[in-house]
């Protein structure tokens, strides 16, 4: 499955040395895993000439629970000049869910990082305004974590009986008699 490394992967491996933990290409997606402390450096290195990965297309995370390090923060970059995509990842342990903020490199990282904080509870250090963005401000927990259950919220409708999704609602009222 692993194909030969793309030039930008080789460049990062050489430039950051030990901080590049892993490089691979699965189904043609070039991926570089960088140590948490150096990930913003890596983003800055490839943003400028000659690589020009100047668009942060996406920034997200996923939870590897119960494995450790628990989280992976994923950056998808795009180079318009080279017509190429690059995925940079970094790993974040569950006992210390923090990562450096990329807002200084890409202004667009602002909302993405707020979303990751909101849904995964990863704190981005140096973020100007790390608040919840999708969930209500008084929400407890971070819903996209794997150990956050998928449940039904009680709502304030008249006659609504909260149920677990897989349960069948019991029929209310007397059974109809056949004439």
């Amino acid at each position: 499955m692993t194909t030969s490394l793309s030039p930008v992967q080789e460049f990062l491996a050489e430039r950051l040395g030990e901080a590049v933990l892993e490089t691979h290409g699965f189904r043609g997606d070039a991926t570089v895993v960088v140590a948490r402390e150096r990930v913003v450096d890596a983003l800055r290195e490839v943003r400028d000439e000659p690589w020009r990965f100047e668009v942060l297309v996406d920034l997200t995370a996923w939870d590897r629970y119960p494995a450790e390090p628990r989280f992976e923060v994923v950056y998808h970059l795009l180079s318009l000049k080279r017509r190429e995509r690059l995925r940079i990842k970094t790993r974040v342990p569950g006992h210390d869910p923090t990562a450096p903020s990329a807002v200084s490199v890409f202004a667009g990282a602002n909302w993405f990082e707020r979303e990751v904080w909101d849904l995964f509870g990863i704190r981005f250090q140096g973020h100007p305004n790390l608040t919840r963005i999708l969930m209500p401000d008084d929400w407890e927990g971070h819903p996209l974590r794997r150990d956050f259950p998928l449940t039904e919220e009680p709502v304030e409708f008249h006659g609504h009986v909260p149920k677990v999704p897989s349960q069948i609602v019991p029929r209310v009222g007397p059974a109809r008699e056949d004439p």
Partner: protein
Amino acid sequence: MTLARETLTLNMGPQHPSTHGVLRLVLELEGEVVVNCQPVIGYLHTGIEKEMENRTYHQNIALVDRIEYLSSYHEELAYCMAVEKLLGVEVPKRAQYIRVLLCELNRIASHLVWLGTTGIDLNVSSLLMYCFRDRERILELSEMVSGQRMMPGYFRIGGVAADLPEEFTPAVRRFLEEFPRRLDEYEAMLTDNLIWRRRHEGVAVLSREDALAYGVTGPTLRGSGIPYDVRKAFPYSSYEEFEFDVPTGEHGDAYDRYRVRMEEMRQSRRIVLQALDRLPDGPVLTADRKVALPPRAELVRSMEAVIHQFKLVSEGVHPPKGEVYAAVESPRGEKGYYIVSDGSNRPVRVRVRAPSFSNLQALPAMVRGGMLADVVVAIASIDIVLGDVDR
């Protein structure tokens, strides 16, 4: 004597007719000039990404339709492409062409909604009626192939659910024949209309630098003069075989975005015509029985087909361990799916890269220093779908 300079904080939304959904803007005003703008989102958050982790790959097709509900075909295509990439499945040529055909019709329908709602925002209410009249024809075409006007659920992993019905092709041709005349009518009404131009020209300017920094894509990016289109840069579903132009603007104002979208509708028509002319024969679903259901006729003859059918219906597909990103050019920009698989029949993580989310993030940069009334134009010109922003 000097007057104290004070700013006024104005809450626009979440229920406001020109926010195109449930969007709240906290505006800081000095007189009528916008000093700062802070979008507040999340009112339509439905947790679709979480929901998808608990369903099989196939079941999720029904969910993705509901994200960017004005362009469900693009949504399905992006999701199916990501799963197909994960599985390493080839999609038959005919299915690829059908997908292109429906996506481009869907783009026209989506742009017509944008044009009509922009008209409402700028008090050209008759425009909405005209646009919805045309859009209705496309929804009827969608109903013809999938049985649904919106949320079609028509694409499958490895192809499409069924072949096109016989009456579909002539109906599309009839629509496409009339459509340019309609577009000319709208352009005659708007493009050189003094009021329309004054409301659009020089309004909500987005510089190239800001557009790139915020990760803006789609017509909003192309309006700022950057010719990035996923269909050209990373061709998918046979787009490299179609001839079409990518229109761009110069100034990055609302008027350029208007011109870009109007031209895109004409280009989409071109693509649909080419797809109709060159529609190849053959199957519309992959023959890989580990991915797609066997045809009905085979079930009565072959025990193996019954087993495949049973496994697919009860368990679904099992992609190998890995992670992929696949993107399409939706009417609003780059719509991408990042899927992580652990080898089981449910994804570990499905991330929806929403174009409207990034485009909306650039809104404060567009409206700062402008007039309050132009905020309405700015929102209309980035064509947001709040279901896409909040997911």
